[in-house]
């Protein structure tokens, strides 16, 4: 019996080690850092919540990091840590990165916020940037995110033009303001080309569950939808669309080559220019604190290439609308906007204030589904 207790504690130890070791393993494949200081390259680091091959959120950020390397060459030395859990571990990861001489650290998940803020207060010489973070008054701390809703409006236009039955199924992750805002923008885009079409919402209550995402998409089609919209970035709903022969708008990743027959388009983010600019500002010594909310006009958000299903006429309409958004002539949340019950939420001539967009908890008219209250 003693032996078994010993071995099991050994195993438990191995288990713990493996859990802790995960974030380290990522950095082994990081930037080709041959020498520490070859002419004073600035060190920049990224902390990712997922693996760099997730084909969505983390891949997009890592492409941004690679864009920095490409643009700034030997002026910069980049590192990344992947699969970092949103818990106490991240504080240690940040400590290590600071000790390693990184001058700017980007953390790309909401849950890294507390540790980032604590580190920012502790190390005033290092710049900390938090994607999707909450604005605060720490001097060396910035937040950044993008107006995905503009792109969702445009992909909604593609869906509105595609639907024959006038029902579009939306596979939605969680009932939080970000997702509600995106669904509303999408529905407004749908209605701009197809006023009577509705967007039907199914919540899967998960950020990542590919089988369930597909099952939800199939339920929606069986329930009468003939276009599917993804709120997460798994391509699983695309598989359902392919099998059932209906159109599909994705999110956060370009799947046009994998699903040429059903692909319409998707909202995508390009983090590269933002990262490049901010690393450059650290090199130049003129980095400034800000709370950045990128848009189509900045090239921060965009839509993915169109699929073959999208007609030239629709493409032209979408491109025209995109130009209007770019130039500032069109505001996707301009009134009049009424909610599901028909009550006016935004008057004609007014616009939904930014703060209200960030805390939105109601659906626009034409969205079918509830927002569960927690």
């Amino acid at each position, binding site marked *: 019996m003693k032996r078994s207790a010993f071995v099991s504690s050994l195993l438990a130890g191995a288990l713990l080690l*493996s859990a802790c070791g995960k974030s380290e393993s990522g950095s082994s494949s990081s930037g080709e850092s041959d020498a520490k200081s070859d002419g004073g390259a600035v060190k920049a680091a990224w902390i990712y919540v997922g*693996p760099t091959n997730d084909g969505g959120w983390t891949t997009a950020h890592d492409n941004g990091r690679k864009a920095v390397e490409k643009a700034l060459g030997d002026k910069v030395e980049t590192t990344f840590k992947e699969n970092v859990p949103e818990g106490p571990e991240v504080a240690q990861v940040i400590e290590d990165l600071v000790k390693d001489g990184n001058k700017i650290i980007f953390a790309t998940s909401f849950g890294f916020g507390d540790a980032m803020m604590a580190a920012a207060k502790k190390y005033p010489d290092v710049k900390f940037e938090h994607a999707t973070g909450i604005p605060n008054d720490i001097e060396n701390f910035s937040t950044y995110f993008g107006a995905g809703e503009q792109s969702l409006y445009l992909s909604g236009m593609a869906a509105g033009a595609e639907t024959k039955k006038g029902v579009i199924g939306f596979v939605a992750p969680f009932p939080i303001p970000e997702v509600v805002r995106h669904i509303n923008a999408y529905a407004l885009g749908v209605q701009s080309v197809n006023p009577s079409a509705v967007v039907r919402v199914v919540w899967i209550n998960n950020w990542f569950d590919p089988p369930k995402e*597909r099952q939800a998409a199939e*339920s929606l089609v069986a329930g009468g939808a003939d276009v599917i919209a993804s709120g997460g970035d798994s391509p*699983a709903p695309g*598989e359902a669309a392919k099998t059932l022969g209906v159109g599909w708008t994705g999110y956060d990743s370009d799947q046009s080559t994998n699903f040429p027959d059903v692909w319409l388009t998707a909202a995508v983010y390009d983090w590269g220019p933002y990262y490049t600019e901010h690393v450059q500002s650290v090199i130049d010594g003129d980095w400034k604190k800000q709370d950045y909310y990128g848009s189509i006009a900045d090239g921060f958000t965009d839509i993915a290439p169109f699929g073959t299903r999208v007609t030239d006429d629709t493409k032209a309409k979408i491109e025209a609308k995109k130009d209007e958004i770019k130039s500032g002539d069109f505001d996707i949340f301009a009134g009049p906007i009424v909610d599901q019950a028909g009550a006016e939420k935004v008057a004609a001539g007014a616009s939904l204030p930014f703060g209200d967009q960030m805390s939105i908890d109601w659906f626009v008219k034409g969205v079918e589904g509830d927002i*569960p209250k927690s």
Partner: protein
Amino acid sequence: MTAIMVASELNNNLLVVVAASAIYYGTPLFFAGLGEVLTERSGVLNLGVEGMMLLGAVAASVTSARAPGPAWLVLILALLAAMFAAACGAAVHAFAVITLRVNQTVSGLALTILAGGAGLSSYLANLWELRDPVPHQFTKLDVFGLADLPVLGPVLFNQTLLTYLSWVLVVASSWYLFRTRAGLHLRAVGESPQTADAVGINVVRTRYVHTLAGGSLAGVGGACFSLSIVPTWQDGMTAGRGWIAIALVIFGFWRPDLTLVGAYLFGAFSSLSLTLQARKVEISPSILESMPYVVTILVLVVVSGGWAKRRLGAPAALGLPYEREDR
């Protein structure tokens, strides 16, 4: 014309849609659950199902993506690869708990973490650069051209080969467990290894064989995801189905036939919560999705009682290491 319309109307009926979906999404749960039934019947608890499923999924995915040859051959190879990869994971667990007599819970959890979503399976996928849909997949078949038959068509005649394979397996494994000598030996080892050993049954070999067999089946369960349901590799794509499979074993009273019923019930409740939303029926999806777990807890209460325990309960030696000198 009208007959066809009536048929398609019928086949779009809520119950038909849910039943067809329950079978498709319940199939991987059944494979993994049946594997765990065999493993637990030998007295070994393996909580590494989620990890083994992911190993199977990644092995099937790379085989489908890389292996040359006709589709049917590649798919057979992919299933074999999935079985082998998952069995390797099971072998680690078997060695730890049968030979070294380590705590079975700890070893199983370690296996899930090591092989799981952020572990070995994701490392291998990265190494093999798996990111596009696999070229060879198990798609839904139109068996005997009956897929459009009213009601029965979508449910029975429009499933993948994996589902039909699972139906063969449920019969074969029930027969094996309850009608063969080897099955009797297996159950004896799970109930009382001391007694089994005394009558000359090789306890260690029986446990190894069924832990590995259980692992292979978990691998096939994983392959259902990477070759059919989500035929693009994604880290952690099984998203917790391995844990449901473990609950299924209890739900199914350690019997293959009831495990199949349980797997379809899990699939049905998951489908129902989504399908009702898609049809604007307002019932809390959380309540529907928690139903199978409520039933599982009820079953646990039942099997812990006297009569049921004797008739239906868990193998008496489940989770206990066997040492000869303990006799």
